[in-house]
């Protein structure tokens, strides 16, 4: 029963559905148009709709975090503080940090793309636990409400790191609400992670072996492991902090017999892995986008996949590099510095492999690819400057200066945010069925990236010259760098605002995207856009590794022969693909 394979210039993972005609398209029921009522959204258990719920609120929280930082940047125009009182400034940068980290960077890719794309990538109808998935969104929203409440009743001024005894004893702001917010959103992280792990283990379609998993799925899998293992420690930490603050039990406050360094150990035991929670999904997105827009197989699938897992594991053992100056002792610093150097290696491997992937490709520069290239440029700088900080001797000078600020914004914004925008632009046609404006999207990407350079390169210089972080007033010799930074931030602001307009406009005036506008290989592109309610009209069968963009002679012939196209030939096909074409797959156990 050989099916006709459309004339493609690449080898999709499974047989693409035929493109519907215009009339069929109009009549087609998809996950968006089957029901328009509010309750159909609020009680949905469809992973795609839950993904969109996350998208809406993550975007709102991102806007709030951006507003907070615009206050910070405006204030820093003047060495004596342009617009804010000292307290207001402290609350503004705390709001920026906490909102961006706990309500945007951590949940956005797992919540939106993880939910929406992972089940489609592995050919599943939904997540393993659809109701748990919805619960996870509600829990996240409940936690977010505590954050908003905390902001509404006066804010928090501890910084996102909440170091006691300042936070527990000397700051009279709303730590308890914020702590509750973190505690609750943490559960949401754990539930989503659990769902993704089980989904990846149990829901893969026939032929989707571990060696054929798209790298985004590998990245999400690694991320989920970190979330499950690390988040409880954060919950414990904020609980202890709340106990100290409200009941006066001495845990961290030395005047009550506690140890302030204990908090730092516990906090960073979560919060360092948390930066990998933030960046790993972004790295997954980049692997998808780079391969698609350069029409190449990923260079070194195994290396890229296992480096995600390597980062996840080793990332747990480096938290002490935040404490080189806290008095933790020589030998601890020595060990943490060494392991930090080791965790830099998998990141370097990834960057080199992506660079090798575009070599000899056929590269086109639509918005997702511009963002992805932006990621490569910015993340490279972010990663390399991490080495200055991982080196114990130079960290003494650079610690707690703007050098650190610039470094982690290069990884978190230059890396993670660019990856998120790349992913959003890449999968937007799949989510909505519409294409956005090519011109405006490219312009926004270029603005965001160039504005980013202007914002954060000067901060490296100010930081090397000693400008401490979290200073509303500063030595005027740093003013030029701060003005450049604020100018760059304004350009970035335009770059991040534009998508709001052209993406929403695309819903109304955008061209129909068709099922596969980028001619990508992944399963999610082999079903119409927007996808039907259960993603695929029939269960897809996977024959190939994820990124067969280069048409290998013989491979298509094999696919076209029909030999592998029946269920019964499936196992044989696995063997074939494995032996003949060097894919790393082993038959799925599920």
């Amino acid at each position, binding site marked *: 029963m050989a099916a006709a394979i459309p004339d493609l210039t690449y080898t999709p993972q499974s047989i693409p559905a035929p493109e519907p005609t215009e009339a069929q398209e109009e009549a087609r029921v998809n996950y968006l148009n089957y029901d328009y009522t509010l309750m159909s959204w609020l009680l949905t258990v469809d992973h795609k709709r839950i993904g969109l719920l996350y998208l809406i609120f993550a975007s709102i929280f991102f806007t709030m975090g951006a507003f907070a930082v615009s206050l910070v940047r405006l204030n820093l125009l003047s060495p004596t503080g342009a617009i804010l009182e000292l307290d207001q400034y402290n609350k503004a940068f705390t709001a920026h940090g906490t909102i961006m980290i706990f309500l945007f960077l951590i949940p956005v890719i797992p919540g939106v793309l993880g939910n929406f794309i992972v089940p489609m990538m592995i050919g599943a109808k939904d997540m393993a636990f659809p109701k748990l998935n919805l619960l996870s969104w509600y829990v996240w929203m409940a936690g977010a409400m505590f954050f908003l409440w905390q902001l509404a009743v006066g804010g928090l001024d501890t910084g996102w790191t909440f170091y006691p005894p*300042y936070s527990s004893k000397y700051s009279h702001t709303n730590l308890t609400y914020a702590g509750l917010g973190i505690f609750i959103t943490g559960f949401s992280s754990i539930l989503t992670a659990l769902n993704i792990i089980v989904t990846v283990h149990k829901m893969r379609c026939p032929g989707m072996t571990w060696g054929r998993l798209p790298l985004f799925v590998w990245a999400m899998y690694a991320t989920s492991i970190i979330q499950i293992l690390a988040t409880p420690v954060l919950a414990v930490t904020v609980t202890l902090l709340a106990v100290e603050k409200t009941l006066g039990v001495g845990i961290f406050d030395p005047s009550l017999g506690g140890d302030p360094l204990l908090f730092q150990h516990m906090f960073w035991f979560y919060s360092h892995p948390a930066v990998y929670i933030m960046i790993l999904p972004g790295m997954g997105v980049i692997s998808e986008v780079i391969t698609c827009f*350069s029409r190449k197989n990923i260079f070194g699938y195994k290396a890229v996949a296992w480096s995600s897992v390597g980062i996840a594991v080793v990332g747990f053992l480096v938290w002490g590099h935040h404490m080189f100056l806290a008095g933790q002792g020589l030998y601890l610093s020595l060990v943490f510095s060494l392991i930090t150097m080791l965790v830099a290696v998998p990141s370097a491997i990834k960057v080199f*492999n992506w660079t090798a992937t575009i070599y000899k490709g056929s590269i086109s520069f639509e918005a997702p690819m511009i963002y992805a290239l932006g990621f490569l440029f910015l993340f*490279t700088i972010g990663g390399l400057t991490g080495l200055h900080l991982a080196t114990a001797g*130079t960290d003494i000078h650079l*610690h707690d200066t703007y050098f650190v600020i610039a470094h982690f914004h290069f990884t978190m914004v230059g890396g993670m945010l660019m990856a998120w925008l790349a992913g959003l632009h890449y999968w937007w046609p799949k989510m909505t069925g519409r294409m956005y404006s090519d011109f405006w999207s490219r312009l926004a990407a270029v603005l965001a990236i160039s504005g980013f350079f202007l914002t954060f390169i000067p901060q490296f210089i100010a930081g090397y*010259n000693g400008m401490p972080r979290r200073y509303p007033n500063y030595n005027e010799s*740093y003013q030029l760098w701060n003005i450049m930074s604020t100018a760059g931030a304004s350009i970035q602001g335009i770059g991040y605002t534009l998508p709001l307009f052209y993406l929403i406009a695309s819903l109304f005036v955008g061209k129909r995207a068709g099922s596969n506008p980028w001619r990508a290989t992944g399963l999610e592109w082999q079903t119409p856009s927007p996808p039907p309610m259960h993603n695929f009209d029939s269960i897809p069968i996977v024959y190939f590794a994820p990124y067969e*963009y280069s048409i290998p002679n013989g491979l298509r012939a094999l696919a076209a022969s029909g030999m592998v196209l029946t269920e019964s030939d499936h196992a044989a096909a696995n063997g074939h693909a494995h032996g003949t074409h060097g894919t790393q797959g082993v038959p799925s156990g599920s």
Partner: protein
Amino acid sequence: MFAAQDIALLPTAASEFAKDSDLLFWYINAVCTFGGAVVYLMIFASCFAFARRTPNDKTPRILGSTKLELAWSAVPMLFFLSFFVWGVKLYNDQVQVPPDAPEYFVAGKQWMWKVQHPDGQREINELHVPVNTTMKITGTSEDVIHDFGIPAFRSKFDVVPGRYTSTWYRPTKEGTYDIYCDQYCGQGHSQMIGKIHVLPQADYLAWKEGTFKSKEGKYVTDGSPAWEGRKLFLKLQCNACHNAESQARAPRLEGMFGTNRPLQGGRMVAFNEDYVRKSIRDPMADVADGWKPIMPAFPVSQVDEIELRNLVTYIKSLKPGDLPTRTEKFPAPLGAPTAGPSLSAPTPGGKN
């Protein structure tokens, strides 16, 4: 708008450690710039050379190369390890305080730095130290965690409530540099700043004595002999006559030390330690020209020799504007804040 000297480009390196730290920093910079440049060049070159020409460009099916991957894991790893080894050596140098170094004590509190010198002198938000001398700094905090950072020394260490932490300096370049609090500590975090003055040995000795003529600071060094002398000066109400007011009944002692002064009868006298001492013990012996001989004598039963020496040192330290007013009773602690951090404008320091 900005003069070149007002822009922080490269921080001054004013200590031995600063030079070591910079060397490693620029080594890492050089390696990273090279590594980053390789990646950037490859990406740019690929983007130009392999930009899509036709929608159906053929691309080669390259699945990877274990050899290449091993190479670009191992080579960066070797460089990373070199950073690590050098960095740990430097870090070790910085945390292993040389034995016998004189110990300066720093206490952070919201939002000021209190410093005590090995010989008991005290300062707030200032630190005077001798050049080319190894010194130990031990710190703690009275409330929250602070961090005592001096960018010009490339040095920084957290001061933590409930424990002592230490580091050490060996300043090599005279000058005045910034002290910052580098660990967020609340409202006045950015005002918890100060100055460190690296002085020549002789000036530092004078500073310790309380007679250093620096431009900053009206008062003599807290905890110095001159400071003790000042307290005594007020206690004995010397300022009832020796003050800066127009109806003062005795010579205005500021700025006199080291000069020659006229005496009654047309003689001149060198205004030095001996003369000041003698004038306190036996005021009638050499009365200053133009003043009535009304000063009482202060015998050893009233002012012993140690106290007298402190008084002499205080008078030695006086420079114009230093004399207390006629009614001043008790010395205000040196550098005591006169306004809360939020009330006063910050002190924007000069370039490092």
